[in-house]
């Protein structure tokens, strides 16, 4: 993540704070900073979302395309992620600096969404073996203030919720080739089910304790963190992809604790996000009058 220089005294202060469960801004180890969410900000994309998590600002756009499914999975659609760490985010991202971080984020997301249990690829199928939807999820990191994995996955899930796939009807022409007719009506569309879509939770280990939602300074104090991808199915949390980052190692028991913490936080985040997305949808209605956007 963005590299922040800290003095030994500051690190000691942060470390003692984490031990006492009272972090620098008064949060406990399990608290997230307030987030702000908006969907449907980009009018040209099939779906979009913007998430602000304190300093971190993520914008996601989803584009749809019709593609041929892979022969080994003829009834499955496709999903492709792309992350761009804008040079505006921090000076570290100038030139090629941001590309390593972007690659890491792409790999985490791909891993998390890989399993058909995590994301219902069958709903993206149009004609088995011949046509399917391919979704391009483009993520733009506008500002980096720590905890990128969480923010990116929340924004991606929100954008998928917001994505509208135009309704497709097929007519059978001769010679066995089917022709697809895509509806032009912007209100005639289907949505994607995202109940099981996973969320990434970064659990950071500082000293002997684990915490979530580290700020950039706290990330600078930790040796190792584990990114847990939590997906809810039938009310139970499942793991759909985990890996460790940070260049340190942890004991097996610490890892168990971090996993438990990540799973419980992931569960709560999932319910919270779904609730807020539904709330927004109810309040705004199907016709969006005006988006709030970036001003104000």
């Amino acid at each position: 993540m963005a590299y922040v220089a800290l003095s030994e005294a500051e690190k000691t202060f942060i470390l003692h704070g984490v031990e006492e469960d009272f972090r620098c801004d008064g949060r406990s180890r399990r608290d997230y900073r307030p987030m702000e969410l908006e969907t449907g900000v980009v009018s040209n994309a099939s779906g979009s979302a913007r998430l602000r998590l304190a300093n971190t600002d993520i914008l996601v756009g989803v584009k749809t395309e019709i593609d041929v499914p892979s022969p080994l999975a003829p009834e499955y659609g496709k999903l492709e992620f792309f992350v761009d760490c804008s040079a505006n985010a921090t000076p570290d991202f100038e030139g090629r600096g941001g590309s390593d971080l972007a690659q890491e984020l792409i790999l985490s997301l791909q891993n998390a969404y890989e399993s058909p249990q995590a994301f219902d690829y069958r709903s993206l199928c149009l004609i088995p073996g011949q046509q399917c939807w391919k979704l391009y999820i483009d993520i733009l990191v506008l500002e980096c203030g720590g905890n990128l994995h969480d923010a990116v996955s929340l924004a991606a899930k929100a954008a998928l919720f917001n994505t509208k796939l135009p309704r497709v009807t097929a007519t059978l022409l001769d010679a066995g080739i089917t022709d697809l007719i895509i509806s032009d009506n912007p209100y005639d569309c289907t949505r994607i089910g995202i109940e099981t879509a996973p969320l990434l939770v970064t659990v950071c280990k500082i000293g002997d304790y684990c915490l979530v939602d580290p700020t950039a300074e706290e990330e600078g104090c930790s040796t190792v963190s584990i990114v847990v991808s939590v997906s809810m199915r039938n009310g139970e949390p499942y793991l759909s992809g985990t890996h460790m980052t940070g260049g340190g190692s942890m004991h097996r028991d610490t890892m168990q604790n971090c996993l438990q913490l990540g799973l419980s936080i992931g569960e709560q985040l999932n319910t919270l996000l779904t609730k807020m997305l539904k709330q927004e949808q109810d309040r705004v209605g199907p016709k969006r009058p005006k988006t709030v956007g970036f001003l104000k």
Partner: protein
Amino acid sequence: MLRVTQTKNSLLDGATIADNLYTTPQDCEEFFESLEKPSKDPKKFTPRKTFIRAGVLTTVRGSAYMEYGNTKVLAIVAPPHELMRASARRMNMGVINCYVNFAAFATGELESVPERERHLGSMLTKALEPVVCRTEFLNFQLDIRVLILDDDGCLLSTAINCCGVALVECGISTYDLITASTACIYRNHVFLNPSSKVEELLWKHRGVQIEAASGSAPEEHGLVITASMDTFDQIAQCQQCGYLSPETYVKLLDYTLAVNKSLRQLIRQVLTTRVREQHELDLREKTESALEDKRLKEIIERLQQKGLDEFIQSNIKEDPYVKRM
């Protein structure tokens, strides 16, 4: 590779057939049936037939070759050198870069190779960072290169093991010996050290799985790769893909840790043999040069006795390492 052989559809008149030129989900089913299925809870945690040799190349200081069953991997470590990209400088630690390359004949599916190389490289870097004493080479970078000669599953864990041995061979300070292994679960069968066919089954074949109606437990499938340093029970890297419940995850984690322990004994053995071998080579060289010195001294004494001091003085510039006799 699950590939339908060409002899099945050789139509000489050039007519095309709608399917059958590609592998179908049906083939995957057949393959799965044909597999010898291990029990749900394996009792023996042994690695595959392993061969590791440290110090196989003369061009680099640290190299290792490992054969894990059919998977063949070669790793090279050169001593740290000056940091290329000044922007990658970190205040108190050196930088590690891992580059993975597949040989052209290593694997059957060539389109996904560049992406897999990148993925493996980044995962390998993450796994090796905790084990190397990065404080010893501040502002330097360490390049590790891995060449995969044959892909039969468990690539990442084999690469980690191989690199661990190569690091020790090169003389880079590490905190501990690192060992890694893989475990996967598919349709309630646990496979330890899965072969490439099983891995492919896990990723490619998804067609028939989801028959479960909503409300019942989902079918779990997944792969866990763990790299651990066993002296203090530290886990250097644990990567999971797929869809697992937390209990299954912990179960697979424990299996891999058990396999790691037995692998570690093997690696320790290899390294001690290598050190002994190197020690013997050094000793031999030392005795040979001591012998040479003694012989030279004898020649000089003899010549001195015969009173040819002048002769010796004028011949002092002769190359002393040439064997006389």
